[in-house]
């Protein structure tokens, strides 16, 4: 393999590594992962103790 071809391969490899590294950063995205969309929900009776509230604030 000529030195030019070696350089081209090294350049491509470097680009690939950079792309992988940058996608590693993006992997922290808060977009929802593939998880069950419908969690198990138990409806509580009126007057049940509530620990937190999802009210508009």
């Amino acid at each position, binding site marked *: 393999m000529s030195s030019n071809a070696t350089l081209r391969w090294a350049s491509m490899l470097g680009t690939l590594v950079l792309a992988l590294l940058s996608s590693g950063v993006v992997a922290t995205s808060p977009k929802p992962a593939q*998880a069950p*969309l419908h969690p*198990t929900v138990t*409806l509580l009776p009126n007057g049940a103790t509530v620990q937190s509230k999802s*009210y*508009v604030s």
Partner: protein
Amino acid sequence: MSPELSSRHFDALGSTCELLTLGTGQAALERCEARVREAEGRFTRFLPDSELARLNAGDGRYLPVSPEMFAMLEAALWAFEESEGLVNAAVLAALVSAGYDRSFRQGLSEPALAASVKLPPLPEVLLLDSATRSAALAPGAALDLGGIAKGALADLLIDELGDNAVCNLGGDLRVQGLGPEGDGWHIGLCDRSAVALTEGAVCTSGTTRRRWGQSAHHLIDPRTGMPARTDLAEVSVVTDSALRGEVYAKSAMLLGSGVGLAFLEARGVHFAVVPAVTSGDRALGAAA
């Protein structure tokens, strides 16, 4: 001996935040609050030197952004697609036109003449380049990441609180664990019903808070570029992630009781609603 329940309440992200944890202690709560405040400094549109303010002032140029901002912008694009354009972060011009041009605590006034603002679809004005981790906003476009940031942050920060905790950022709430009674965390919804869940999120959107003037409120309908006219006052949604819950609840609010509830039913999520009380041709929030 059962683990001790620790809690922390504070104002951030323009809302009241609540953190609960069993057995992890105050240090985790303090760490989580610090991360919320750090995120607020990054994503607020009210501080001229915030990262969002710099991006909004970018005038079409690609700017390098932090990993956190890049991820949030990706989330905003996801929210746009998931809501078929109803949750559009490129809404800032309409918010400002409606009078929401400063922090709510500073007091807002409703403009004498309500003006409709044509809002661009987010994917047409926000470009991301993952190779250089940079973002560009089209000239004239500006973002508000308020609701999206609360939902996304609740999802990101829940692990900071341990495996039995609640991260409630202004009504966008993520839970995990069995809670103090062993059957899941008990969470109140907008209609004052309550559910128990061990993993997932509960999010509420509405027009009953952050109102000003006669009829202005913070929930902008991107189809009209004005505060939404809807027959719903509040919607709570239970789903897998707080970001998704935020998007679904806001979409249902904007669509109103007919289409909005069908939207939620089609997705199979549990939800609760509070209808608006109509007065003349205006819909007013019914809940306090």
